[in-house]
């Protein structure tokens, strides 16, 4: 029997397995907004205070769901999908620059519930949707009077779950960001993302049998992952049930703000302009550094083998995304 504590002001920081069942670790975040480039960075900053580290509640998932029923949190107003290394952190930082937004950027608990069926037998899509809404609702509680909307910037592989996410948040507009596959490959060759290593993703999501992955070179696996992610973005866009936009990295600096404003109905004020300009002028993942376009540097750095794989697996789907984008955005 779970004695549910008073969770006012507490956030589900992490979901872990205990005896094969998911348990929720709650952390008191105080008034700290999610303004770092990634959710985990905000959390780690908070955990530097001994109170946050020593005093954490633990509850069942049922308690999390019950909390959602009692306190559903702010409404979700936008979803940001991406292929990784393509400017999605800049989009999250632009959204987070406005104090009326709660931006959950690659939040660990969101990923855990989306992958719950992979490690807890018998978890259904209906259950994942319920858990997902409950996690986002708990993280998206209003903690400052000006906050009124939640945005989810998802992990790159979550676009493979786009139909489920659209069911969880029906009618919520979304975007899918992508970039020249050679440049993305170059970035991953420098520092490989978790999804570029076998083990995180279900091989079936990639159109592969488990046996095919064993012995596959890492660069080929990564190139196939990126292609599968882009394919899911394209197919999701074609089958969209809400407003959606495709956006190439090259569009971001000149047009990103306009697209975001239109798609997510941002209603910018005079005070917002300097906040947004400040974000655009900085490196999104390391805001103490100024922004520098690294397109040419990335294209130069990639190995010839990586380039060939990116061209083989990534170029056709990148071209298809660009063609679809250029056909124009039609509201369904």
């Amino acid at each position, binding site marked *: 029997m779970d004695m549910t504590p008073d969770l006012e002001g507490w956030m589900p920081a992490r979901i872990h397995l205990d005896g094969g069942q998911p348990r929720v670790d709650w952390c008191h975040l105080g008034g700290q907004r999610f303004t770092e480039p990634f959710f985990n960075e905000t959390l780690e900053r908070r955990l530097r205070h*001994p109170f946050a580290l020593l005093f954490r509640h633990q509850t069942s998932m049922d308690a999390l769901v019950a909390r959602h029923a009692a306190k559903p949190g702010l409404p979700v107003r936008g979803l940001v999908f991406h292929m990784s290394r393509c400017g999605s952190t800049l989009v999250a930082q632009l959204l987070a620059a406005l104090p009326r937004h709660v931006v959950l950027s690659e939040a660990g608990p969101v990923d855990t519930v989306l992958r719950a069926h992979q490690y807890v037998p018998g978890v259904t899509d209906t259950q994942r949707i319920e858990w997902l809404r409950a996690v986002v609702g708990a993280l998206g509680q209003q903690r400052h009077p000006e906050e009124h909307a939640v945005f989810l910037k998802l992990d790159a592989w979550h676009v493979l779950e786009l139909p489920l996410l659209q069911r969880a948040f029906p009618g919520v507009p979304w975007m899918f960001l992508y970039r020249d596959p050679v440049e993305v490959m170059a970035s991953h060759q420098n520092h490989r993302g978790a999804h570029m290593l076998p083990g995180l993703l279900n091989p079936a999501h990639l159109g592969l049998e488990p046996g095919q992955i064993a012995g596959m070179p890492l660069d080929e696996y990564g190139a196939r992952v990126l292609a599968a992610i882009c394919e899911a973005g394209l197919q999701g866009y074609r089958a969209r049930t809400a407003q959606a936009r495709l956006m190439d990295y090259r569009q971001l600096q000149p047009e990103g703000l306009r697209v975001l404003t239109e798609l997510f109905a941002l209603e910018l004020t005079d005070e917002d302009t300097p906040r947004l300009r400040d974000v655009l002028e900085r490196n999104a993942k390391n805001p103490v550094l100024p922004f520098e376009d690294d397109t040419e540097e990335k294209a130069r750095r990639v190995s010839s083998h990586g380039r060939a794989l990116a061209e083989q697996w990534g170029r056709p789907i990148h071209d298809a995304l660009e063609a679809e984008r250029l056909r124009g955005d039609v509201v369904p």
Partner: protein
Amino acid sequence: MSAEAFERFRLRVLEDATLQDALRETPDTPAFVARAIQLGAAHDCHFSAEDIHEALRAARRDWRQRWI
């Protein structure tokens, strides 16, 4: 047995919003430790600064290990 006393205090704090506020408002670790020792003693839970530091090390280890 002061590690056990700190654990008793920790469980008590989790049920008491006033104690939580008092500990959360400390600006840094030394101030937190001093406040925790003082509040612990007031609730008949006697522990040392080293007990708190050991609990912090264990909490950090536990946090890092609990990834899915």
